[in-house]
């Protein structure tokens, strides 16, 4: 077999196996590069609030809080809905306290979560659904349950996940994120968990793709002619 014929045959047979996946790779790659990662992360969904200096006078002392929350590991003083709160981590989990009165706020009820969701959301739309999930959905796999899910009216179905124990925004999702996660699955060929970038299918397919692209490059050597010579042969 002559070299050009060999190049063409190998390229064509390799492509037969890998072409569909190559289309998936390029399309998913184009999506991931074209839609900015900050948009995917939903940065614009959350109202940007510049941190304000905390007024410490009159707040419950951390020493006092240590008695109220047995097994205390760490605590944070933060502001929620304009009021100072302590977010406490104990050996048993997380808890939220009013930093002025020392009253335990967690687990937060529907009204408290609704107020926080509305205050956090940067969009115009209202909350269309609010529910307490006891099992975390696939889109926030690693987060602890129970968790509140607030879906808003607005483009791409914006969704906030808020912890009933800390009152904090744990995750934000919208359809552009969901699409990214979906095309990422095609990109890394982990069609089960969308996490393993070292799976055997991907390893085999990527090396085959490299062979396909290399034989393609080889084929290019035989694919172009100088026009002048072509004309002369016609004449």
């Amino acid at each position, binding site marked *: 077999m002559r070299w050009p014929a060999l190049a063409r045959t190998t390229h*064509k047979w390799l*492509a*037969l196996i890998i*072409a*569909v996946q*190559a*289309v998936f*790779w*390029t*399309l998913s*790659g*184009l999506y*991931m*590069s*074209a*839609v*900015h*990662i900050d948009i995917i992360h939903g940065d614009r969904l959350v109202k940007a609030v510049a*941190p*304000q*200096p*905390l007024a*410490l*006078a009159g*707040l419950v*002392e*951390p*020493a006092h809080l*240590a008695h109220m929350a047995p097994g*205390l*590991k*760490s*605590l*944070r*003083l*933060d502001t929620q809905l304009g009021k100072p709160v302590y977010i406490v981590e104990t050996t048993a989990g997380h808890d939220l306290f009013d930093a002025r009165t020392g009253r335990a706020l967690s687990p937060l009820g529907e009204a408290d979560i609704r107020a926080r969701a509305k205050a956090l959301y940067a969009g115009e739309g209202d909350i269309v659904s609010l529910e307490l999930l006891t099992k975390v959905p696939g889109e926030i796999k690693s987060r602890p349950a129970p968790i509140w899910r607030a879906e808003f009216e607005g483009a791409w179905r914006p969704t906030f996940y808020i912890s009933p124990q800390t009152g904090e925004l744990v995750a934000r999702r919208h359809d552009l994120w969901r699409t990214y996660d979906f095309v990422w699955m095609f990109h890394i060929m982990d069609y089960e968990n969308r996490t393993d*970038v*070292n*799976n055997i299918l*991907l*390893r085999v397919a*990527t*090396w085959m*793709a*490299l062979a*396909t*692209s*290399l034989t*393609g*490059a080889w*084929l*290019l050597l035989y*694919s*172009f002619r100088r026009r002048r010579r072509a004309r002369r042969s016609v004449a």
Partner: protein
Amino acid sequence: MILFLRWLHKWIGLIVGLQFVLWTFSGAAMALLDHHKVAAEGVIRPPADVPRLEQPVSLARVAQAAGAPILRLELKPLQGRYVYEAATTDGVRLIDAADGRPVVIDADRARSLAVSAYRGAEPVRSVAPVTESTFETRTFARPVWRVEFADKDHTALFVSAGTGQVLGAKNDAWRLWDFVWMIHIMDYTKRESFNHPLIITVATGIVWLALSGLILLFRSFRRSDFSWVLDPIARLRAAAKTGAR
């Protein structure tokens, strides 16, 4: 149509084909590099048992020690003691929770924090401050201390000079991965962004290369290409037919 696709495939191949070779190569390399190793998993040990919190100093003492308006305040364990970490308008301050004295993360403290977080047994090779963004520290808030250990992976731990927190670890597997990642995302200066005009333009071209290639496949094969599998089937069918008769 087919002629146009063939022309398109060939010219896109000529113009951006090299990047397709680089993408498949870097993709294949990243699929091979074990991401547990790349992420330096298991290099940093989880914090030891939390010390008992003895009467922490009052908020008034903290405010005084911080010396600037406090934006966020945290009380947390740091190497067997409790500290207040105050984010102020003038940067982060660490304050010892037992006596209200400032805690400074200097080279010695960074070294000892890194050593107690490091799972390996090898000694420290070097401790150096990082004040400008490097490939290794681009995702960390600076200033940080870089503490390198004398292991075979050249593991370096990064300790925040503000908070004393061990931010992460980088090793040779990561450094190799990061170079390949640079090739993959075509951000040759910062290795950070995959959302720039160059990559979007080239990716658009490559989508057409893949699509036209897929369509051309239907015209590139003849029945004779598959005779090695179709002929025996045909023979078997013929045999079955004559057998049935």
